[in-house]
């Protein structure tokens, strides 16, 4: 990533208040203040997605905070309460900046969080997503316990398979283009209440993550949390996600295979991830250097990856897949299909 690139950030903050009580508004103000106190390397906006609250959140502006505090805040509102996934995807669709950060209305960031995450992005052009450790706190802000998870790629993959969701959702900073490439958060009811884990399950198969090994995010624990209200459903969804991920044996293969694919095709690891994801998702037949075949087979054991038969006329170039100017299958390339 170059220093002069657009490093703008949209902070996605979905809100649904059944009642605009004082405590809700206090916590929301605290969240917005914690965003304001960050040092963003570029422009930023706080996008409050009002998920059909009976009283529009925008109408409560004066109770949330001063005009100065809300200077970078933008509101979008859904006509009805469609649920968190709908609100998040609506926010993605409405965001204006190339980086997406997540925060919930009752949580807050600690100073320096965004800065440290962007340092990682600036140092590693292949990085697509960064998270931090978190501290569980009471609504009054009293710390309960701290969680800091492994920071390296393999550690994150291992954590995913052995334990669960590696990224505290409210600590995530990620590329918007990858969010959109992967289709945003899944609306599949089977993964309701673990929509983030389901998305990372897809993300980590193809893209590089990192973690700031510091607790820079306060997660507020209360009786109405998603885990408390929908524990069983969340558990069954998480099991489905984990088992799916485990079956593709990604832990030991993804980092090496992505590097090998990037090297074989002559692209960055980020581009290799985009190429592999699109081939997997859309079962594409693509002209590729022969050396790419093995790496792709490792990345997608759930696809029939092979050199296409001579009668297969569906092949497109990898440049087309990456939306680059097309070529017509360079010399020495073989059409690889992921059926």
């Amino acid at each position, binding site marked *: 990533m170059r220093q002069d690139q657009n490093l703008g950030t949209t902070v996605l903050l979905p809100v649904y208040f059944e009642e605009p009580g004082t405590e809700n508004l206090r916590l929301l103000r605290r969240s917005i203040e914690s965003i304001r106190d960050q040092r963003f390397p570029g422009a930023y906006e706080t996008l409050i997605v009002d998920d059909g609250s009976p009283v529009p959140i925008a109408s409560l502006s004066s109770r949330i905070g001063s005009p100065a505090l809300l200077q970078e805040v933008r509101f979008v509102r859904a*006509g*009805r309460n469609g*649920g968190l996934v*709908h609100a998040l*995807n*609506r926010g*993605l*669709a*409405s965001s204006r900046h190339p980086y997406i950060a997540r925060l919930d209305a009752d949580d807050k960031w600690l100073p320096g969080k965004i800065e440290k995450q962007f340092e990682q992005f600036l140092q590693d052009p292949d990085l697509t997503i960064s998270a931090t450790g978190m501290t569980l706190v009471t609504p009054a802000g009293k710390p309960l316990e701290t969680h800091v998870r492994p920071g390296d790629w393999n550690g994150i993959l291992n954590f995913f398979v052995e334990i669960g969701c590696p990224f505290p959702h409210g600590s995530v900073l990620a590329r918007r283009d990858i969010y*959109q490439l992967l*289709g*945003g958060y*899944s*609306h*599949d*009811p*089977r993964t*309701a209440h673990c929509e983030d884990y389901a998305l990372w399950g897809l993300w980590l198969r193809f893209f590089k993550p990192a973690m700031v090994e510091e607790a820079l995010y306060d997660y507020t624990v209360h009786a109405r949390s998603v885990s408390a209200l929908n524990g069983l459903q969340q558990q069954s969804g998480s099991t489905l996600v984990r088992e799916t991920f*485990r*079956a*593709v*044996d990604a832990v030991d293969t993804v980092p090496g295979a992505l590097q090998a694919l990037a090297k074989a095709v002559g692209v960055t690891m980020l581009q290799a991830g985009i190429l592999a994801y*699109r081939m997997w*998702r*859309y*079962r*594409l037949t693509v002209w590729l250097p022969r050396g790419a*075949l*093995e790496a792709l*087979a*490792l990345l997608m*054991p*759930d*696809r*029939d990856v*092979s*050199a*296409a*038969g*001579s*009668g*297969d*006329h*569906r*092949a*497109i170039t990898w440049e*087309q*897949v990456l*939306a680059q100017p*097309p070529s017509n299958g360079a010399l020495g390339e*073989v*059409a690889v299909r992921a*059926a």
Partner: protein
Amino acid sequence: MDVSAVNGQAPEDAESSGAHRDMASDVGSAFLPAAASTGEQAHEAELERVRAEQRRHAERSEMRRRLMSSSDLLSARLEQVLLELHETKQRMEEAQRTTAGLRRVLYLRRMSFQRRLVRRLLPERLRLWWDERHLSGLERIIRESGLFDAAWYRQAYPEAAASGLDPIRDYLQFGAAKGRWPRPDFDPDRYASERPILAFLGLDPFVHSILSGAKPETGQRANDPLPLDTDAVLMARAQARGPLLEGSEPDGWFNGGWYGGRVLAEDERFAPRLVTPEDQLASDMRFQVATSELTQRYGIRPPAQTIEILRKAAPVGLIRSACAKTEPHRDARCSQAMPRYAIVTVRSGSAQHFRSCAASVKALMDRDYEAVGVRRITWIVFGGVADLNSESVLDLFPADMSAFVVELERTSSHGAGGSLKEALIKAGAEWHFSLEEADEIEAHATAVLDFYSAHFPRCRSILASPVDIAGDGEVLRRNRNASPDLLFESGLAPGQFVAVRCDLPLNREGEADARAIDYEALLRVALDEPVLVIPEYLHRHRWLPASDCKAAAANSSLSTARAMRGFLNLFAQQLAGQSDDRGAPQPGPLTAGLCIIRTQGSRLHLLAETVASVLDQTVSTRPCVVVHGGDDVEAQVRAWLASQQLDALVIGAPDRERRRGYPLNVGLDYVRANASAYDFAFFLDDDDIIYPLYAERLAALLSLTGCDVGVALANSRVPWKPPQPGHQQLPVSALVAGNFIPIHCYAMRTAFLTANPLRFQEDIDYLEDWDFLVSLLDAGARFFLLPEVLCEYRIIGDGNQNEKRNRDHFEQCERMVLEKGLLAARRLGMKRFVRDLAAFDFEERAALSPAEVERLVEVRTIFEIQMTENRR
């Protein structure tokens, strides 16, 4: 929203319109004051609906029966002929078995009395030497095993101690005949009584127990720590195994043997059979019990959904027939009289049993050398030769054999690749087979392979079942064979033995031949030339602890499913019909879409939300509201949308006499008239919404895949409740038998609509959406199913109640679309069905219900029947 599905699905799946309506009615009734009365009515209505559903199902079946009656007659006659053929074949096999009885007895006698025969032929002075040689051999085996309890023996049999003879020698010369025990927990008589073959062959039970690895009755079980076998014991066990010496069930007797589609004749088998029906039954039962115990002990999980479904829904009859008809490849030369063999072992990091594996290879090499007088077996090991103690197993091999063990680096995680080919050429091998690092090859393996390669000189692939063993060598099961034409359905057994000739290509077209022997390669071979399945057991496959097996099984499930899909694609090439091969997609993204929204103007609040969901898309998508009603309704809709500041195109469909397809056709006419402005189009009803990334996802799909119709999934939602999964996808060809794609779940490429003037039926009130999808399929549209939820339909109280009012019309519509589906199936052909089946990802969707699996089988039958009709 409106979607229709048929063919006996559960109500919530089978008939969405009705199901939604009923569910909506239930929701509504909760708010009525006369709850009890309404409840009864609702109950009655529900009962009536279920009865009606049953009636319709029966009538549908009758209709199909009529449509297929002529084929049924033919099928029945064919079945009768096949039955007669089968019975005749069975009688012939029985006769062959009886005739072979004498030969079998002679063979066994030859084996068991050979030693005594030789003794008789020797001069008197050499007979003592012969006996001593024999006894010394047995003595050495017992001594090296460490299992003989000499102290106990002396104490238990004082007369033996008094004789002054070595206890082992005493046991062998006199004790065994007198029924003495070699140790306190081994009863030779009981052991022998459980294994009648020992008496027949004149083998000492204790020696046999040592050689076969069986433990004394109070000895260790599989889960106990492994005994520290000495190399001598390992070697003794490996060397002494013979084809007919193991346990109570002689190897291969109860197993089948086939060459391509035909059963091996008795004189084509290496080891003749001595089998009565009772023996076979007992053996079959032992196999079942052993399989069940193995499944439980190692936590074997059922195979992946894809495997189960493909085995049921694929045209297995056609596949069997194709595999059974194969002939030896015309370019295949005959095997050499004394072929050279290469054993290939790829290390994967489990060293615990590698020394046993090496000992078995050494024993095979020794036995083979004794038999043929030259060294002709090479062992190629990838990834090191270290055992559990990090010592090289090469110390088992004397210097003169070291040249026949080739150690290679494992350069690729995908197998051996080019270096294996080089090594095979260097070894001059004609045949090669794999041996896993924890498995053991039998010492008679090459003798058996010699026999079969001589009898089937143009055969290039030989399969044998494994003897499954536990970590400590305990025999768990003698696995069974299946004929090669069942390879697709039965799969490869874990640890199946496969030997292939080096001139048999194992690669796919366009790929290098890495000599990887896997299920996929074998399926390809089975479709191309006869595979030989032999009854004998040539190796022992060691089962590792359950934790290891679980990970391996998940991986194996994926690769098996992948192999089956690859095979189906290959098999489809042999079939007639449409291929659905997409041409290369047009470069450039699809940037503009049109959403045709059908409304009668009766639920404007819902319409506003529908239009808003279209306007929220990230890809430019124009809402085109088609108002089915008079000018007044159209004006009302315009005013409402303007008041809500919703920018939508509103066009009228004023003819109230025309039915539900009419407004959609008005929308299609608009798309065609403005084709240059829109790259794709899709439909919505005025109570549906699309999620924010709907257009972006489907546009990307159409653009990248080059397909004509991109299909997503929908949620269903009762207002104020969380969304629930809507209709699940099936292979596209299944549309010929029922609908599973709601009308708002797919986007069509405008270019396809322009080239194909398809229209909705305007004279039907029901199933016009299913009819349109069948028309798309029949017109050759290329579908792509995206297993992502991108939209939502709502279950509300004003569903199409017309259905209840006009049941006869509904059934008339259903018959019409079904007939259209049959014709589409005939035109599309079996090739299209097989390709669709192979392309569908069953793992990404929820588990199929039995009704859905049944539907797939039904669809296959339809395609099979239509294939027969086409041939006529």
